[in-house]
């Protein structure tokens, strides 16, 4: 499989999606190398989630093409789904299952079974600090704990490409650091490709080797965090983002409402 895509994990050409009159994604051209960690930034509603859904084979594009691991997302949607993992934005967790039961469910759907699966679930849960709570129903978990279970479910079957939609928004700094390290380790040792939607520019700066900023459905900038920061002539990625998307408001108008 690797030979067919020449080290490129994700490749899109003029990828577009419209919902009625709304252009959610317009003409996105993108290339992500295997083992790289792509950070996808942009305002709420800019088209990040829609792009992820198309690339993971859940949604058909209106026009344009995309390949994931050399497979076409339209004609080989089923193969794409098999070899990718997804952490969705709004989690559809079963609240009445325990963490172990939920991960068993996800594992068996991906044809993992028996000893291998159980060992993996136990270790992942203890790595994420959920040991001791693994047999409690998910409805009793805090939002951060649920997020950890979802991270585990996205990585469980060792997918070659992992889509993470806001992976750390509900995690405390320790858990966030753990997820960061986990991503680094998997990308470097296993050549797993990560496609990460996030609002946290510092997270993207720490974790991602390439960042794309999307606004109003169109990809505005792609480059390494350092390149983007230098080209906009600012100090960090947050300022660069504000420069590109806009959003600075002057002090007088901040107080004018009072």
């Amino acid at each position, binding site marked *: 499989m690797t030979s067919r895509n020449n080290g490129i994990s994700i490749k899109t050409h003029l990828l577009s999606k419209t919902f009625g009159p709304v252009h959610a994604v317009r003409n996105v051209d993108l290339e992500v190398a295997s083992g790289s960690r792509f950070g996808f930034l942009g305002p709420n509603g800019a088209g990040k989630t829609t792009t992820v859904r198309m690339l993971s084979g859940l949604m058909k594009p209106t026009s344009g093409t995309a390949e994931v691991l050399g497979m076409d997302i339209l004609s080989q949607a089923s193969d794409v789904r*098999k070899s990718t993992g997804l952490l969705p934005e709004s989690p*559809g967790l079963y609240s*009445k*299952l325990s963490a172990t039961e939920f991960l068993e469910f996800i594992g068996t759907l*991906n044809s993992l079974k028996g000893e291998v699966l159980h060992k993996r679930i136990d270790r992942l849960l203890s790595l994420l600090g959920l040991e001791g709570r693994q047999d409690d129903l998910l409805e009793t978990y805090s939002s951060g704990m649920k997020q950890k279970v979802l991270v585990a*479910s996205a990585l469980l079957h060792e997918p070659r490409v992992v889509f993470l939609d806001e992976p750390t928004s509900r995690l405390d700094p320790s858990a966030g650091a753990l997820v960061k390290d986990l991503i680094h380790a998997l990308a470097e040792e296993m050549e797993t490709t990560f496609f990460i939607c996030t609002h946290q520019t510092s997270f993207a700066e720490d974790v991602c080797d390439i960042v794309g900023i999307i606004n109003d459905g169109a990809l505005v900038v792609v480059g390494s965090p350092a390149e983007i920061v230098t080209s906009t002539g600012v100090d960090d990625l947050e300022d660069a983002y504000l420069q590109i998307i806009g959003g600075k408001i002057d002090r007088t108008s901040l107080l004018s409402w009072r």
Partner: protein
Amino acid sequence: MLGGEVMTGSWYHIAKAEFYVMTSGFRKHRAIGTVLLYTLATVWASYLAPMIIVGILEIIMPMDVMRTLLMVMFPGLMRTVILFLWALLLLYPLSYSLQEIKIGQWEIYLSNDVKTKDILAGTFLGKMPLYGLIVILVAPVLISPFMAAFEVPLLGQMLVYASLAFMVISTLWLANFLTSIIQARLGDSSRGNDIAKALSFVIALVVIIPMYGLMFFMPQLSELLGMDAFLIMPFTWPADLVSWIAITFNGIGLTGGQIIGFASILKFDIIQSAILTVTFGFLWVPIAIAAADRIFTIGAGARTESVTTVGRDNIILRGIRRVAKGPFGALTIVSLKDFGRKAQNLSKIFYGVVLAIILPIIIRQMSIIEGEIFVVDEILPMISIMIGIVGVFPFAGTGFLESKDQLWIIRSAPKGASRFMRARLATGFLMAVPLSGAPTIAMIIMFALPPLLAAQIFISAYIVVCGAVMIAMGATAQNPDYEDTKSPAHQTVLMTSMLLTEFTLLGPLFLDLFLTLGLGIDVLAVIESVLHVDGLWFMITIVGPSTLLFVGLAMMTLGIRSLGKVEV
């Protein structure tokens, strides 16, 4: 029945997960619990239920008398029984699952490369254990009188239950298919959830109206249309199949003439009924599998749906703003807007109005059937008692607070809870106008009521509705369910409000009963002699509603206190 090509196993894992969800209440002892439940259910179905039901029936009337009665009514009754089961199986899962949309789960299935027909099969099989159990518990109660009356031997009974099982399975499949379609169309958004909740009430109405119809208009309907009208209904075919099996295997020696008599009523013979039942059952399997790919697609998110922009306040709201200036008026207006824009509230109001209009129709119908002369004055007490339910329903449980965080926001304003509740109450009192007005208008049209009586009915209905609204709101505030219709809080609130309202309305009567029986004081007679009015009328239309207002005020006060309390 699912065909060979779905043996990939994904459907099995989904069904297993659904089964785990269902049995999470006793997850420590899942296997034993399930076996135990089914064993108990089987004992109930094969031994206890027939014994108890037949026993009860024999107390009411001897088997010989009942047999003749049952034989006369048999085909029609069987259709009613099966309609009940069919509606239960088709609409209950539908309205139950509409209360919680599961698009997020579909996203997980699909991203793990589960085929759509596996999702359909898995969710269907996942429902089987629960609904199977319900049917095992309910069916014998409905069926055993007939089995006893016709003395159907074991083989016949087994055939009857096999036909029922087939009907149950095929109906569940259809219900599961329809549920998935509706969920996919609505999508996972607050708007979708609201519409779904609204639909689930409309669906309940769809069940209730034909049930009322069958119960009260059977004679007229049969005269008008004959039994033929039922022949196009899918539930008729399995019903007739069961009837035929019972007739064919009867152990009481039906004569050829009697069987021909049945045939003339049932129209289709046993073979035709069987073919129709089986065809209808299997018809939906290929249709659903073929449509699966179209159903399970992830659509646009909540944000990309159409956006509703609010316009200028309408004339009623502007009127309120003019009358009630200041924060109270503003809160009431916002509360009204919030209430009126939720489809589920509107559908509950509609539901209440329909129930309230059906009421006088039934009252009239009953007195016509029983050959009594209809006395308009008698409506008033009846309306008082029945309209309590109508007032409780839209305000108990849902449509109150959307989340616990909403409560924190309200509580973080000084005296926020009591300000909020007073505005809600004003909303409730305004909504009580259509709720009590609708049945009044219906009755004015139907019975040509004199204006004075009409005004009397409207006022007493309005008082009862207001009392019921206060009880419902008070109970809800003491135990909010945050829009989760499956929570114990929701069930408790609904039951408490209903029972409290009805017992308060009827309470004086019970009190009278106790006093009469226990102490020999006939309160009704005392009232009649002192006030020179009809005692029963006075109790139900004056004493009951006034007590209701007091109880409502008390519940409301408790509700405000509980909503505004500092948590421990």
